[in-house]
């Protein structure tokens, strides 16, 4: 039959009214919450009835449906809303399954054809009027991305854990000739769900189409992203994140392997923490990482040893005898506070040492020319034993100290003093030594630079220490 525009419009108008009523009801539903469930349905029924009467004349079926629905509701009494909705859907299903062709006819009629006016054809009135109304009321914003199966299947399997779309197409696809129609229906359903029960239960029902447009989408936005994020897993039987320890595929769930896994995770955590501590730890390999860790610990212990030897050499009476105890302590504490700021990345670079002239009366005697030979000698000694190297230096009135120390000494306590420039020579075990004395600053006349690569440090040749500012 040919669609007559007038009938279409009339029907559309009636349906639009019903759709508007549906929308209003939906909004009320969202606002009201689950308690209004029954009222909402009543409204729906009442609102739709005139449309049905007006448009389709298949009121008998509609009232039959409504009454059946109410029976179900009455029967279930205080049953949780999902039951009600599942009933609703089951009814729909029932109608779909058994009245597929009449429904199809109905849709076709409502879409493009004048109403047949037949009683038996108006099965499933509840959904179609809503869906049809979408055309007139501008609900076209709700796009239907997926077929009805997604909606129905979860209901049917009541809290099923699958998000797959079962193949309902055989039964229902002929019914879906309009995407907008489905959209409104789905929106209706979803708003029912949302309003009537806690959102958590339906997280795996997601309606991406509700992201845009209509008021139902507003309430759905909060839920849908959560649902969408929670349910993208493929494969059958993906468990929602309820169990705390989730067994992956192929892994046994017995306590031993779980404990094993936990242990491995803990070890990995600790290795990561260690990796942050140890400088230049770019290796991801576990064995080499352990090597680095071991080397670093050894290096630090060696550093403590050297510092103590330095202190032992420097703690000769002349150095500290001049100070009173309080001054000593106070100043050092101040220095400790100051040192925090600029000493973050120094320790790991302390592979470079610098011998400065000690106080032992060798102030002016640390002539530049005398250093070259001493450098070699010290380097040779350092390779074997640090103690003898220190003693050798001490005999010469020199002492060995890290470069950072020397630079800090020259620029200590924020006095405006020219720091020792980076002109510190390097003595490399492997390469030929380049002797150079950095007796630069007139303020630290007794400082002459002799840099020796620490035996335990990294092997790079050209590290010229930036001067450290102790502000």
């Amino acid at each position, binding site marked *: 039959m040919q669609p007559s525009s007038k009938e279409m419009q009339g029907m559309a108008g009636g349906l639009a009214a019903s759709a508007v009523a549906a929308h209003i009801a939906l909004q009320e539903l969202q606002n009201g919450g689950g308690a209004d469930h029954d009222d909402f349905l009543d409204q729906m029924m009442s609102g739709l009835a005139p449309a049905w009467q007006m448009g389709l004349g298949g009121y008998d079926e509609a009232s039959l449906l409504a009454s059946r629905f109410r029976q179900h509701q009455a029967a279930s009494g205080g049953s949780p809303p999902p039951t009600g909705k599942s009933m609703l859907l089951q009814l729909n299903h029932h109608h779909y399954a058994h009245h597929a062709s009449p429904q199809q006819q109905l849709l076709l009629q409502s879409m493009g054809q004048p109403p047949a006016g037949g009683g038996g054809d108006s099965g499933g009135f509840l959904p179609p009027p809503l869906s049809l109304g979408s055309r007139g009321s501008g609900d076209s914003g709700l796009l239907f991305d997926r077929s009805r199966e997604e909606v129905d299947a979860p209901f049917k399997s009541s809290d099923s854990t699958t998000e797959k779309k079962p193949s309902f197409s055989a039964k229902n696809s002929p019914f879906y000739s309009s995407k907008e129609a489905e959209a409104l229906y789905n929106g209706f359903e979803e708003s029912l769900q949302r309003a009537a029960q806690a959102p958590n239960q339906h997280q795996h029902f997601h309606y991406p189409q509700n992201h845009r447009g209509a008021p139902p989408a507003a309430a759905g936005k909060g839920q849908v992203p959560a649902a969408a994020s929670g349910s993208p897993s493929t494969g059958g039987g993906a468990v929602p994140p309820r169990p705390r320890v989730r067994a992956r595929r192929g892994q046994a769930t017995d306590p031993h392997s779980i404990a094993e896994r936990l242990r491995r995770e803990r070890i990995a955590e600790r290795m990561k923490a260690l990796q942050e501590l140890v400088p230049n730890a770019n290796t991801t390999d576990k064995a080499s990482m352990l090597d680095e860790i071991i080397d670093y610990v050894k290096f630090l212990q060696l550093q403590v040893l050297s510092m*103590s*030897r330095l202190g032992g050499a420097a703690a000769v009476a002349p150095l500290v005898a001049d*100070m009173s105890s309080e*001054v000593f302590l106070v100043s050092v504490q101040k220095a400790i506070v100051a040192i925090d700021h600029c000493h973050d990345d120094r320790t790991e670079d302390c592979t470079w040492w610098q011998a400065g002239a000690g106080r032992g009366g060798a102030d002016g005697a640390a002539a530049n020319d005398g250093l070259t030979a001493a450098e070699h000698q010290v380097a040779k000694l350092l390779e074997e034993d640090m103690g003898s190297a220190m003693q050798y230096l001490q005999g010469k009135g020199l002492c060995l100290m890290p470069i950072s*120390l020397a630079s800090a000494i020259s620029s200590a306590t924020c006095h405006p003093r020219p720091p020792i420039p980076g002109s510190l020579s390097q003595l490399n075990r492997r390469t030929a030594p380049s002797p150079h004395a950095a007796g630069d600053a007139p*303020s630290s006349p007794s400082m002459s630079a002799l840099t020796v690569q620490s035996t335990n440090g990294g092997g790079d040749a050209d590290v010229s220490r930036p001067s450290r500012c102790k502000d």
Partner: protein
Amino acid sequence: MESKSFTTGNRDNPNTDLHGSKNMMASHFLRALFRIQQTSTSSSSFAGRSRRIRRAAYASMAYSAGARRAWSRALLRKLRSRARLRFPRRLSRTARPQRRDMDQAQVLRKLVPGGPSMDYCKLLEETADYIRCLTTQVRLMQTVMDSISSYAHHPMIP
């Protein structure tokens, strides 16, 4: 895992706690240093003095970590028993290439105080804390040296 870090870059580390432990370490170490300096005469050997300083350094490390850590407890035990404070510090005589995973854990156990009585997981955790404490101690000693030397050349003007 209680991670008390001495480095400013660590994420779980309130600054207050940082300074507290550092100050404790510093004051302990300085007092020990001063004691050593007072009791040392011109006839004391360089080696003896440096050993005492080293012992003082490890003692202040252990005291700053307290009894919270297994390594600090082991270290305190070692110090109190007046045993000779020894650490494997062979410079370049160890045969490195032969190291495998098991050996590495063994080597690490020898380095970290209290190591032999820990399982691997705990060993890693203790190593991390030990490294942090060591770095703090080294910095502290460097600062001390700074101050001493600066005073030697430039007496402080209050």
